[in-house]
């Protein structure tokens, strides 16, 4: 059903990937977000990740809800189908799309309001279903598009632009996901693209639901003094577990010797995630260790970032449902309709 597309002629200087595509081919419409919005940096990282992974744009599906963050799916990969659904309910739409066509690469982009308030139930159940998709939660502690109300991820005491402190306990999507048995849990910072990039790649390659909580400051409503989601506060208080390298299967592992002690996890498709300088006792496949680590940092007033947990062995939605390899949308009608005779026989059972 797919088609091979010929790389059009371009300026020689532009670097191309295995598909002969340049980064430009992975870009999207002009962003209409505020200048400096963290979300735009995430978008840029996204472009980079898809480009470097040699993913044909039209084989990816961009799913989102409603919000500034959810708008960003329009700002990368113009040649991919995009689905800007309704507020907080993207996980179910993505689940349905994936059920119909498991071959596409699904990326969901959401916000802390979209995911942790109105969409909390759907997020939790997408995690439980282990839908094969990368889910990027662009977390800024506020409802940006509706002009800065506190979201469910706002920290107690964090101040609004008007100076009022938030009084409700925050929901940490990372702890939530770990407690639900999510199979890939990470946290990044839009201000740290080098560390975010490999997480995105690993998330795209993960078989199952990959949640990446990306701290992505809102310059218009939550980047002031007293906010715990500002660029400044995040930069000063985030604690990276360990930088990771994503080594896709196709490339042979050259970087091997480059650094010292490193833990690595082999992904389902054979590619490898290598953790550099990680505390030797940290096991990124130990769900409880990850949880404890995040909590410990939290108690210290720090924000644990990094690729915190990977489980490559749990079944994803389709394995659980035991569906055929081929996308259900492509199964020929003949294979679906039992036909006249079968019905006749069946009718005898209703006498």
């Amino acid at each position: 059903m797919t088609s091979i597309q010929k790389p059009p002629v371009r300026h020689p200087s532009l670097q191309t990937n295995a598909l002969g595509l340049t980064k430009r081919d992975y870009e999207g419409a002009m962003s209409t977000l505020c200048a400096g919005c963290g979300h735009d940096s995430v978008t840029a990282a996204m472009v980079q990740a898809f480009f470097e992974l040699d993913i044909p744009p039209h084989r990816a599906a961009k799913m989102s809800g409603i919000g500034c963050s959810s708008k960003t799916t329009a700002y990368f990969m113009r040649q991919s189908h995009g689905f800007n659904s309704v507020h907080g309910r993207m996980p179910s739409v993505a689940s349905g799309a994936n059920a119909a066509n498991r071959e596409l690469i699904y990326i969901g982009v959401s916000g802390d309001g979209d995911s942790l308030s109105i969409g909390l139930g759907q997020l939790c159940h997408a995690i439980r279903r282990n839908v094969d998709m990368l889910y990027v939660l662009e977390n800024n502690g506020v409802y940006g598009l509706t002009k800065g109300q506190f979201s469910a991820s706002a920290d107690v005491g964090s101040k609004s632009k008007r100076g009022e402190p938030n009084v409700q306990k925050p929901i940490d999507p990372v702890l939530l996901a770990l407690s639900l048995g999510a199979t890939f849990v990470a946290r990044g910072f839009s201000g740290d693209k080098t560390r975010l990039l490999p997480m995105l790649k690993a998330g795209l390659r993960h078989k199952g639901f990959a949640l990446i909580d990306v701290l992505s400051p809102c310059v218009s409503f939550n980047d002031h003094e007293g906010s715990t989601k500002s660029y400044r506060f995040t930069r000063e208080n985030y604690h990276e577990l360990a930088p990771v390298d994503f080594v896709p299967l196709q490339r042979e592992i050259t970087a091997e010797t480059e650094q010292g002690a490193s833990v690595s996890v082999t992904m389902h498709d054979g590619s490898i995630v290598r953790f550099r300088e990680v505390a030797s006792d940290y096991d990124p496949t130990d769900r409880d260790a990850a949880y404890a680590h995040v909590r410990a940092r939290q108690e210290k007033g720090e924000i644990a970032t990094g690729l915190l947990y990977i489980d490559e062995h749990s079944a994803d939605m389709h394995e659980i449902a035991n569906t055929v390899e081929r996308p259900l949308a492509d199964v020929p009608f003949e294979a679906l309709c039992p036909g006249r005779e079968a019905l006749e026989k069946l009718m005898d059972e209703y006498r």
Partner: protein
Amino acid sequence: MINDFAFKIATVNGTGSASANGLLMQAIYRMGIPVSGKNVFPSNIQGLPTWYEIRVSTDGYTARPAHIDLVVALNPATYGKDVTTVRRGGWLLYDSSWPLDHALVRDDITILGVPFGQLCVEAFAGDRERTLMRNIAYTGALVALLDIDMDLVGEMVREQFAKKRSLLDSNFRALHLGYDYTKKHYPCPLPIRLERMSATRDQVLLDGNTAAALGCLYAGATVGAWYPITPATSLMEAFSGFCKRYRVDPETKRNNYCILQAEDELAAAGITIGAGWAGARAFTSTAGPGISLMGEFIGLAYYTEIPGVFFDIQRTGPSTGMPTRTQQADLLSIAYLSHGDTKHIALFPANPGECFTMSVAAFDLTERFQTPVFVVSDLDIGMNDWMVPRLTWDDGYRPDRGKVLGAEELERIKRFSRYLDVDGDGIAARSLPGVHPKGAYFVRGSGHDKHAAYTEDADEYREVVDRLAKKLKMAEEAVPAPEFYQNGENNSVGLIALGGTHAALLEARDKLAADGIAVDYLRIKAFPFGEAVRRFLETHDTIFVVEQNRDAQLRSLLAIETGLARDRMTPVLDYGGLPLSADFVTSEVTRHLEARVA
């Protein structure tokens, strides 16, 4: 009174009476006699009153009977209520293990006692078996009283318990306990009795949810999303059963379907829409509360033009209402579901047979018009066994996928504009994700122009929503046309109805004719209404709109959509939660007509 009467069994749910009642109904059906059964059960699992009404009718009328000839009263909690439902001159069968309760005494009926409980206590050990066998015992009594073919019943019991020898024996014992005692103590059969016919040869006993599930199976639906809710649950459960049987790839043993039990109805709607967008035939089944929860998603599908089939197996509302009672009260909700200007295609099956055919039609319509399609059934159709012609299938059928551009077509065209109406039929071609880079576009529930680009421009916005209105207008003549039942030449009185009340209306029509009142009858099969409905309304001076809701919702839809003045249509409303009886219709109609003359 041969093959023309009704009897009712009053028991308590969760005691196994259901299967006994099913046995009776099936036996009569196998005797070739037209029969229908209505299960009136409570919204709990065990211990509350439940009734099963069986009607036999030589003429093949299957609507709820006007009066009950024989009541089997086995639930003391409802004695008082049950005895009053026996027609004068009728019969009451009770469990004489205990002295006759005063509540049951009536001198204008014949009271028959059989000590079912006692007989079972003597014959069986253990409470569970005794309660279960009591049901088979009263079955035996009825076999005797109504002259049901005992060999046939025996044969069925044998079928049923072929594998469970011990159960087989006790069932036979129980059957004969009731049968013999009754034969011995009472003149059998009663004047109301059965005689073999051959009216059911090409018929089957089928419930609407099973039939709808078969429709989805045959239409090639591959994604089913749902959240359990009475009376819609059995639809998806039946689909799942059929898929396990017909949809497992012989080689790989993998499934050619994906059924997702969602966390709620919002998610079920989202899954259906996501799957429809990605190119699968997808559906969900729910009831009123689910419809209310799907409102926002339905508006999205309408505005973004994504196919999906939504079954509403109606129950008594509003709110949680009476989950185990029937009604037709979601009509108005569905027709314009969701905020803003919307309008939806809805199909109204009248029986399980149509649940099958209309399910298939729904998938063709939803893909052809790229808009959600509702199949509006109800508890009576969905959960009761109906006698319907055997379902048939034409192997020539091919799904109508509507305008979907493939890789080659996309390769050829210069620019793909998702919402551009090229041939003036109001429908724009769609592309599926993953097929071709040129097919890529951005689905958004926010304002978009004909190229699917974001817009806040009044004209660009209007251009798209005006086409949507046109598309729905086009659908009027594409949906199943109404059925017109003419009774002789130019009648001035016309009846209108839709859905499961059809059985009652056909019977009412005959009854009225017998009383010298010739009426025409139009059965609406779909929304939006087409020309035929308009014409019928215009050509009849007196119109009765028969429906099962309080607010005359169908009449409202007719007033809005056809323009006929509301008061040109007299509402005939039955909304207590039970299936409609022909007598209610005839008495209402005659009452109004007389009032008019007076």
